[in-house]
């Protein structure tokens, strides 16, 4: 479809990032088709556009972002997007080639963290929770190394693009890596991670839309399909721990 917009009762436009969102959506596509709903999937490799498009009504809903990120976005852009349903968590971990345990990390070690706001905040949160640093605002989801107020080990931060992190792992003492990238790069989160988010992580990925979408029957169908046991099984099978269902 061209601009997809809300209108056709039998088509739902959904913006998503490729992994795992688009893959999960593709998995449920045949199910929805049987119910008479056609998914028009728009794959993005960027975290801003999907929200802009949804808030401007050119796309019905998106499925790519975490709650904290959405909040930050709404605040900054003055949009009123709402989380409609939490689907999964992509736990975030700390990896190293040089050190076996977090305790071995020496003073002055270099820690690579992602360079986009959502993930850099998330990386610092994980470090804070394990006591390595303290943050100016312990609740901030978008902290940057500038917000680190306590740093007993005098860690040095390098901000690197998330997908590059596994590739430069050998050059730093520790890298904070999204699980999907870790898995794709051949790291095993369960075995290799020095730190990893637990099930209480606030970083659940939501289906997001405008207030109007809340009662849209098409969206309801989508959410129902996403929160099905089939999807749960699919996630477990396909992502082997890198993605954890949140329903």
């Amino acid at each position, binding site marked *: 479809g061209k601009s997809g917009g809300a209108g056709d009762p039998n088509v739902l436009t959904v913006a998503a990032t*490729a*992994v795992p969102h688009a893959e999960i959506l593709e998995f449920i596509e045949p199910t929805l088709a049987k119910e008479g709903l056609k998914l028009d999937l*728009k794959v993005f490799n960027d975290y*801003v556009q999907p929200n802009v498009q949804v808030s401007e009504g*050119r*796309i019905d809903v998106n499925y790519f972002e975490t709650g904290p990120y959405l909040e930050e976005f709404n605040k900054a852009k003055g949009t009123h997007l709402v989380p409609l349903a939490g689907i999964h968590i992509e736990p975030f971990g700390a990896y190293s080639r040089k050190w076996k345990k977090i305790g071995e990390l020496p003073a002055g070690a270099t820690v690579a963290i992602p360079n986009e706001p959502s993930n850099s905040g998330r990386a610092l949160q994980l470090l804070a929770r394990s006591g390595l640093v303290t943050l100016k605002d312990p609740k901030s989801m978008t902290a940057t190394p500038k917000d680190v107020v306590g740093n007993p080990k005098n860690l040095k931060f390098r901000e690197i693009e998330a997908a590059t992190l596994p590739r430069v792992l050998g050059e730093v003492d520790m890298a904070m890596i999204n699980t999907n990238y870790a898995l794709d790069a051949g790291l095993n989160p369960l075995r290799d991670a020095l730190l990893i988010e637990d099930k209480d992580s606030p970083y659940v990925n939501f289906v997001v839309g405008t207030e109007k979408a809340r009662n849209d029957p098409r969206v309801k169908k989508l959410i129902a399909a996403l929160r099905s046991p089939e999807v749960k099984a699919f996630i477990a099978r396909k992502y082997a721990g890198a993605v954890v269902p949140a329903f």
Partner: protein
Amino acid sequence: MNGFFRNVDWSDVAQACLDTIVMLGGSLVLTIALGLPLGILLFLTGPGQPWQNRWGNGVLALLVNLVRSLPFIILLIVMIPLTIVLVGTSLGVAGAIPPLVVAAAPFFARLVETALREVDRNTVEAVQAMGATTRDLVFRALLPEALPGIVAAMTVTAITLISFTAMAGAVGAGGLGDLAIRFGYQRFQTDVMLVTVVLLLALVQLLQVAGDRLVRHFTRK
């Protein structure tokens, strides 16, 4: 889907090829349509040229430089409202074309300006001495004489556009470069990366060979 190319979804690759070609084709045509007049104007308003005009030239140059100084991703965003007005969407292949054109046209314009500056001054003078209007001068002398240089500039621009299309994935435009980034880079699927890179190389190679051949064909000197 086993063996070495197990990650490669060939229908995705085919779609990406198509997307790249559509984006390249669409944006190249428009880049030329926009950049050529802009380059001519930059040249004509420059010092010692028929429409010499410090202010006009300065403003044009500033605009061109402004666009060229914006990182492509920022240009993409800044342009969204304009893109929607122009093509009805800021998404997908259609939505990628306006920012691609805006990014590439000033670049092409600079190359055109350089090519026009190389035209033999004696030739230009002789045509002016015929009582040519600036329009005649441009269309009957400058452009034909600079044609090999302009074709070379088109080749460089086309190939640069291909590398821009890789970034157009940000608005969901797809294409080979985006496939390479999403699977090859973000998903560590070396096979997909290899396939896309080979296809991109083939496309670049094709453009370059065709461009070189045209340059040679138009070189009469």
